[in-house]
């Protein structure tokens, strides 16, 4: 049995699932729209958490929260369920498919067989859509893939019940109730306000301050941790920034696309100018990645080089601070 579902590739999995499910239900919501309204943009140096033996950085809001905010702001209702028992999780999934309802699932990446081996880490916040079942094979629309794919029920159970941080526990979700028309305007404004608040938050590890905090640590790493670890940590920053799903530049380009689209919806030309500015900030993040990669490419890096990339980050932080203050004013 197969539901008539159209797969659109997206940069990021969570936005992609939102956008694809909304399109299936007849609402044309683009990926940047979903990302912006859900206030996905962020920077956070997550304290105390180590991922792959390096500090954890994120350029986006916590898994699941983008969809949650999006739903609340545009006025749709989502049903979510988590399970202890894999059989029950499977039964609920099958029942939904029988009712012709494509569903979103949260899964772990490590056992996702269609991913290239090098990308299979223990990361549990990946999202995909199941849109049908043929015998024991589920039809999968993974938003980051160019085409649809399949998983057997064993393979699907494994990824749905991956363990570790953010364990999905069979998490299944789908929209159940829609308004006649989406309240895009107010949702966009709420989304932007929230992002400005996050990025300008008076917290040492969050937003603009978080970027400065990271820059400060980068200066210390070579002395405190040794060159090998410093390079490994730097590599981690770049990987989190440019990993599949960010659309490049740590989500900054997707956010710029969102501002551009919003300027048309709200009829506010200043948002379009701000979008251009955000694109340039995205370019600065890319330049930072290029310079950082030079450091970890040559094992014998000078301390100077670390100071150099740290300064670049501080410049980016300054630019983003100015930017988000302007953005806050623009939507008032």
């Amino acid at each position: 049995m197969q539901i008539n579902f159209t797969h659109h590739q997206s940069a990021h999995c969570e936005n992609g699932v939102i956008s694809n499910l909304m399109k299936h239900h007849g609402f044309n919501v683009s990926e940047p729209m979903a990302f912006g309204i859900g206030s996905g943009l962020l920077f956070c140096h997550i304290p105390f958490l180590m991922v792959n033996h390096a500090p954890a950085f994120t350029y986006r809001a916590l898994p699941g929260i983008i969809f949650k905010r999006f739903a609340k702001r545009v006025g749709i209702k989502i049903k979510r369920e988590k399970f202890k028992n894999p059989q029950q999780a499977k039964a609920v999934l099958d029942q939904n498919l029988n009712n012709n309802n494509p569903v979103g699932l949260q899964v772990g990446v490590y056992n996702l067989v269609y991913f290239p081996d090098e990308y299979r880490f223990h990361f549990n916040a990946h999202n995909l859509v199941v849109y049908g079942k043929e015998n024991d094979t589920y039809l999968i629309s993974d938003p980051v893939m160019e085409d649809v794919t399949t998983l057997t029920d064993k393979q699907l159970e494994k990824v749905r019940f991956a363990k570790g941080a953010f364990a999905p526990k069979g998490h299944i979700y789908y929209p159940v109730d829609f308004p006649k028309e989406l309240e895009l305007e107010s949702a966009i404004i709420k989304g932007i306000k929230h992002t400005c608040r996050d990025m300008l938050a008076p917290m040492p590890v969050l937003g603009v301050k978080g970027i400065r905090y990271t820059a400060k640590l980068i200066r210390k790493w070579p002395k405190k941790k040794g060159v090998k670890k410093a390079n490994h940590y730097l590599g981690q920053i770049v990987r989190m920034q440019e990993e599949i799903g960010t659309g490049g530049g740590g989500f900054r380009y997707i956010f710029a696309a969102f501002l551009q689209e919003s300027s048309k919806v709200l009829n506010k030309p200043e948002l379009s100018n701000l979008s251009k500015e955000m694109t340039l900030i995205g370019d600065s993040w890319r330049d930072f990645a290029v310079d950082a990669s030079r450091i970890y490419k040559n094992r014998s890096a000078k301390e100077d080089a670390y100071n150099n990339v740290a300064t670049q980050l501080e410049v980016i932080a300054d630019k983003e601070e100015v930017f988000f203050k302007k953005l806050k004013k623009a939507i008032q």
Partner: protein
Amino acid sequence: MKKDEVPQDKSNLESANFRELCYAVDENGEYTTVNSTGWDPKTIALNKAIEDINQRVEDAKQRVLNNQTSPIEYYMELHKMDLPILASYVGLWKWRVKRHFKPQVFNKLSINLLQKYADVFDISIEQLKNIELHAN
């Protein structure tokens, strides 16, 4: 990033035959999406991370052969896990898993516990006890 600046470098994505989606502006300044085959700075970062993991696996292997640690640590590294992840997969406290890294403790583990670990690593108990039997 302009549309024609989207990098098309060689990367490990090729093996799975897929290209990721990037956002970029076209000639008129409008945002659009472009597929990318990869970008060197991040391919290098990823390759470094994989090199590190391989190094950790090799270290763990040597320590198992020198009887300094149990095969559990080797298989943990092989599966890109760390202690919290492994503990969560076998459903034990972290300190218990850590204790099982000691060869003398590992040698006395019950069949039940061994089976738990073997299931997580998708191997047989014989392979769990003797890493030489594991083809890799």
